[in-house]
């Protein structure tokens, strides 16, 4: 036997030797045991709940608002669900556990969340909030909605349409009149539907990367229809101030009252950056009609022609849209045609 093989054998033997146990002695430590003891001068407990009473609803809500940044989507969803239930169970006479001005900014970016469950829960939460509060946060919500509508993932694009639909239902007038709300949304819709504004070529372009199927297109067209209805039709006149004879010597009192809306002078843009035509606010129906005519009408009409030819569900949606455009633009004074 060579020296090396002998040595190897000895080594092997050493590996499998059984440790001898002795009575009255501490058990020998295993070869792979890890020493977990440590020494410290002081041990500080970072937090200690000393209160015996349960936290208030407000505190709980604040905690869950903080959890909205959590990396686990289940946790996010659950926090949203908690907030939703807290708001819905709240009696209407009481103020909300946390004001909407706190909830909405924290929640709105979850519109772009990657998980479908979270997104659906966000919509539920938003629906549970009082509509008057939504109206004052329309511009920020609309920004996120638009981001969702142009998102790379198709799911989020669909969800963006859902949010917009709801938003139009709750605060349609604010949506179309807020900064960038009209022109940018129109542009967004046009690019989503693939209806090119400038007739660059008569050739049909190939259905390109990431284009949606006709179902999505139908949905888009439906939402566009309701968007145009909100923008081009007369708003329902809401007479908040009671017109009675009681304040007889005063006429048109409602014009002299302080407005109920927040940020009344937003259109003056006193503090923000200078706006271009796209980001401008279009508060009048006439303004919107003019801009619509200039920027989108031609593209929509040509796009509609193709869509109507498609027939089926797509054709029906196209017909609805055509009707909306026609009705909205009936009283628009067309210089081009007159000439």
């Amino acid at each position, binding site marked *: 036997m060579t020296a090396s093989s002998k040595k190897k054998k000895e080594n092997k033997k050493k590996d499998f030797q059984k440790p001898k146990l002795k009575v009255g002695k501490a058990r020998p430590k295993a070869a792979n045991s890890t020493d977990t003891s440590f020494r410290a001068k002081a041990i500080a407990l970072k937090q200690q709940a000393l209160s015996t009473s349960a936290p208030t609803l407000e505190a709980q809500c604040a905690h869950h608002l903080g959890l909205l940044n959590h990396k686990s989507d289940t946790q996010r969803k659950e926090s949203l669900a908690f907030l939703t239930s807290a708001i819905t169970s709240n009696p209407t006479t009481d103020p909300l556990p946390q004001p909407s001005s706190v909830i909405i900014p924290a929640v709105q970016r979850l519109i772009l969340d990657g998980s479908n469950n979270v997104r659906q829960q966000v919509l539920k939460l938003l629906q549970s909030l009082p509509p008057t509060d939504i109206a004052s946060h329309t511009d920020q919500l609309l920004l996120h909605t638009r981001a969702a509508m142009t998102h*790379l993932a198709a799911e989020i694009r669909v969800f963006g349409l859902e949010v917009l639909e709801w938003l139009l239902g709750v605060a349609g007038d604010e949506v179309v009149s807020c900064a*960038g709300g009209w022109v940018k949304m129109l542009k967004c819709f046009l690019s989503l539907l693939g209806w090119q504004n400038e007739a660059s070529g008569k050739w049909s372009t190939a259905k390109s990367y990431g284009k949606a199927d006709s179902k999505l297109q139908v949905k888009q067209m439906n939402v566009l229809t309701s968007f145009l209805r909100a923008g081009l039709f007369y708003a329902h006149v809401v007479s908040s101030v009671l017109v009675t004879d009681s304040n007889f010597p005063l006429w048109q009192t409602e014009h002299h009252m302080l407005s109920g809306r927040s940020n009344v002078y937003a259109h003056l843009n006193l503090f923000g950056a200078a706006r271009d035509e796209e980001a401008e606010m279009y508060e009048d129906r006439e303004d919107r009609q003019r801009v619509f005519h200039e920027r989108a009408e031609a593209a929509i009409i040509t796009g509609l022609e193709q869509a109507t030819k498609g027939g089926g569900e797509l054709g029906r949606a196209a017909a609805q849209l055509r009707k909306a455009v026609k009705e909205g633009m009936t009283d628009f004074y067309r210089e081009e045609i007159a000439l």
Partner: protein
Amino acid sequence: MKRKLGALEKLEADHAALRFKIKRDPQSYRPDFEQQYQQYQTLHDIFIADPSTTNSGLVALKDLIEFVSHVADLYPDITSQFPQDLIDILLKHHQVLEYDLRDKIVGSLALLKNKDVINSSTLLNTFFPILISTPSKSLRQLLFTRILSDLRSSNAKATNHRLNKTVQTAFFNLLESDKTSPKGIWAVKLTRECWKRQIWTDARAVEVMRVAALSDNEKTITGGVRFFLGADKEREDAAEESDDDNDVDMAKLRHQAGINKKSKKKARELKNAAATVKKKEKKKNAPPLLNFSALHLLHDPQGFAETLFSKHVQNTKNKFSLESRLLVLQLVSRLVGLHKLTILPLYSYFLKYLTPRQASVTSFLAYLAQATHDYVPPDVLEPLVQKIANEFVSEASASEVAAAGLNAIREICVRQPLAMNETLLQDLVMYRKSKDKGTMMAAKGLLSLYREVGADLLKKRDRGKDATMGIRAGAIQERRYGEEAIGEIEGIELLEKWKEEERRKKLEAAGLDPDADNGDVELDDDEEDWKKWDVESDGDSDDSGGWINVESDGEDIQISDSEDEKEKSQRPAKKAKLSSTTPAPGPAADAQDSSKTASTSLEPETKSISKLLTTTILTPADLKQLQTLRATNAITNTLPSHKRAQLLAARHADDPLTAETIELAARLGRKSSKQDKIDMAKADRETTHHQSTTAKRKEKKEAEGKSTTNKEKERKKNFLMTLGKAKGKNKRSLGDVKRTLLGHVERRKRGGKRGNRGN
């Protein structure tokens, strides 16, 4: 029913895939890009509403910014606003931005510049203001490297003068506008780095540093001063370093290409490597790029040195630390020594600091010596030398102190020998009998110096053989203040003598009287000289066709300066008046001619030398002859005095004098401790553990990235494994055996299976 997804649709939410597709076919994917761009714009709007957020929406914005900046050059009409957006975000919100996004924006801007969407000056105008204003260290570092790499890349092919000018102007303005602010340090750092990498080598960069050195902020000042003191050495080191790094082993690459899988990419890599190797080879053979040092590129060194001295050194109001004050003083003295400037208050300033108790006094001594040159009036230096002698050199003072003092005095006197008087010198020279080795050596150094430059100040017995003989012969002459050595070529008299002898030989061969003056013969001689213009083309008469022969009345071309001749005729006369011994030309080079007897009158010889120098143009053949004559006359070179002179000459005038030189003498006598000796003995031993020769060899081979050779493998192969093959060999048919043998022969001829393709 769940629809099956195609490969393309799966990749839908992937910007990288879309980017790839867009690059392939920009026109088809235009709508997709538009959609993404809209998404970017929306997110941008959201972001602008609250720039300091750190929530998850930023990740999307970051991705989109990256995506858009990668393809922005393909859709210039859509993305015209994009670079400006990024610049605005960075300029307005860089303090509150989330750092990932911030870095991404910086990177994207650099990318846009690389794609020529924005130009360099826009980029630098964005980055530089942020660099000097941001409180974030990591951002500063990032911007610094970005700015530098941008400057480097835009100067890579050819110097981009326009960009350099704008950047340098920006630096200049920064330094000029607010002299007290510490922001100027960034201009200094960037300039220094550019100088080091040889991006900037012109006078304008030096001008920026000049302004920095004259600012009011201590950091900026030291930055600027350090640049002048050390940047050139740094530049040389960096140039050397860049030569040796990333050496490509061509043989290894070729070997690998033979073995590994062949692909287009591998072939391309090999080709590129070959190209770089070739380039490097070319670079190595090219003549070195000559760059002027920063000290030489300075405009108006006198004014600069004066302002530096009066503003930073002499001014007692500023509260600089001693270290930075010393730095400035070093620069001033360096400038004074190098450009031979005259700043008289500088020397009286030193007087205060020349005491052994002064902190870092050796530096002061070194700078004083550095600031000395032969145009400094001796009466200004004399009190300084006297003070050093009084304060440092005495029996009572410590041996290191005395050695340092003597050494400093010697360094001063090397540069201005007239600063010494007779009594002091004789006093100092006595220290050569000191018991301390350092002091003794320093004193001997002083003695040997004065044997050469002013032997008459020494006592007769101290003068030594050379000097005594020289004085007696009148060869050694004290040089007066402001006197310049006559410019001449070393060994020219040897050439003269040789030419004369050659001429005599020729005349004798022709049967003429060698002593008679004959113009025609001389002319022949000269023509021959012209023919032998080039050494290499020996006797090729065609070559001289290009040269115009000027022959008129047996005279050759005369290029003589009337002033020179006047001066030369005047100088010996003046000397004759001054010296009591026989008149002689001063320069030390004449000492070579010691074989010549002193009895001959030297006056006519001087004239003849000047004649040869002023009346003829030395051809390359002449110069070569001169060189050989010098070499044969090398006996003088072995003399110790000559060796010393050579050593002195070897020390370049541009090299600075440091405190170490002054302290060196004091360290001589010190005995090293036992530990030092052990360390020194161990220093050359690298490995501590023992290794067999085989193990060493193996390690060496592994370090080279090689494994065992085939031969070695063959030898080590298990015997049993070879059996099967050997058995099979026996059963082969005769034809098979023949084929294998022939194949072996064939491979032998080719040099292995793959042949010698590699070489």
